[in-house]
């Protein structure tokens, strides 16, 4: 799973959000490193909806424009959870190896 996809699903994990909400949330989650633009966001939303990972929840009219809220589906939550587990395992392995390397270098083991 690519990073923007992971971050979009993460943004929707706590509850439904509209497009602009996803953009600001992704920026916050990534510490300002990933700033989604509208074209990228809606291409991703279109793909994720086609894959059954998200769905639109409701619409409201704000300033004469439709604002659509998206939410994770059960399948989307499962995929995000599996991806988060995988990344956690990799991160844990990386930290463990770094500690081992540090210990070996300083003759602590």
């Amino acid at each position, binding site marked *: 799973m690519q990073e923007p996809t992971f971050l979009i699903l993460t943004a929707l994990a706590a509850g439904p959000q509209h497009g602009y909400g996803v*953009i600001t949330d992704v920026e916050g989650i990534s510490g300002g490193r990933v700033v989604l633009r*509208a074209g990228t966001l809606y291409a991703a939303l279109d793909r994720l909806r086609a894959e059954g990972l998200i769905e639109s929840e409701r619409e409201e009219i704000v300033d004469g424009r439709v604002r659509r809220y998206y939410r994770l589906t059960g399948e989307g939550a499962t995929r995000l959870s599996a991806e988060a587990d995988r990344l956690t395992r990799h991160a844990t392995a990386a930290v463990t190896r770094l500690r081992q390397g540090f210990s070996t270098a300083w003759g602590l083991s």
Partner: protein
Amino acid sequence: MSELEARYRRLLEWYPRAHRAVHEEEMLGVLMASAEPGRARPRLADSADLIRGAILIRLRTAFGAESGPSWRRAFGLAGLVAALVLTGEQIGNAINAWIYGFDRWSGAIASAVALASVLIVVLIRYAPRWPAVAATWAWSGGLIAWNLSMLLPLDFSGTYSFSSSQLLPVVLMLTPYALTALLVTFRVERPAMPYRRMLGWTALFAAAVVPQNLSLGLLGYEWDTVLLMPPLTVVAVAAGCAARSASGRRTILLAAAPVGLLAGFDLIVLVMTGSWLFGWLGLLIPAVVMLVVARRGSRVPRAGVPEAGRG
């Protein structure tokens, strides 16, 4: 509407119409909310990102998993459409053979060929896949062999002035037969086309083929283009109507080569032999007709319409 919004709307025209109908206002809301105050033009990066997103969505709509049913319908229809055009041409040729035939056999032979083609169309439309495929290949092979036996002894150089090879017109002429059989081979599901529509378009195409024989020297070689155009124009109108549906657009893509070669052969020959203006005009006008018919008949779905039928 602000200048910035108008510019964003123009960029959103890159997106598929069905996508725009559902998401345009929503995307505009996001774009306007993201823009810094006072900005009149979209940033270059935003413009590029919108175009890239539109291309991705168009590609997914055209070839993604959701498009599977449309492609299956299109593969079913493409072989039938090519066979219908071939049959229409042969019916037109049979009528011409009865009118202008040099001997009493020419009309009878042309009619028998047309009748065999009608039978093949019926098989493609109603028979199970493999009997239809076998019959179409046998028919296609027979037509190629028969046409070769008549065409190869002819000398085209006086008529067409081909500078490269005389084989080219023969190949162009016979390729549609093989392509039609190939399309029928990939038919996964039986083509769904009402028989009245089949009859109507085929009759119209056959009628459009008939005047071609009037062209021999009557108006001068290049002005004869006008008489060569009706078959391709009939095909263009039919394609314009078909272009309004997802499976229709895919059918056009699949059947374009055999149908284009069949209906536009004489015009292609005009282009190849150096009659650029008349040849290209003859090809270009039906293409414009197709676009106009497709555009006039397409309905824009309103926001909130389910997205399942797009593509």
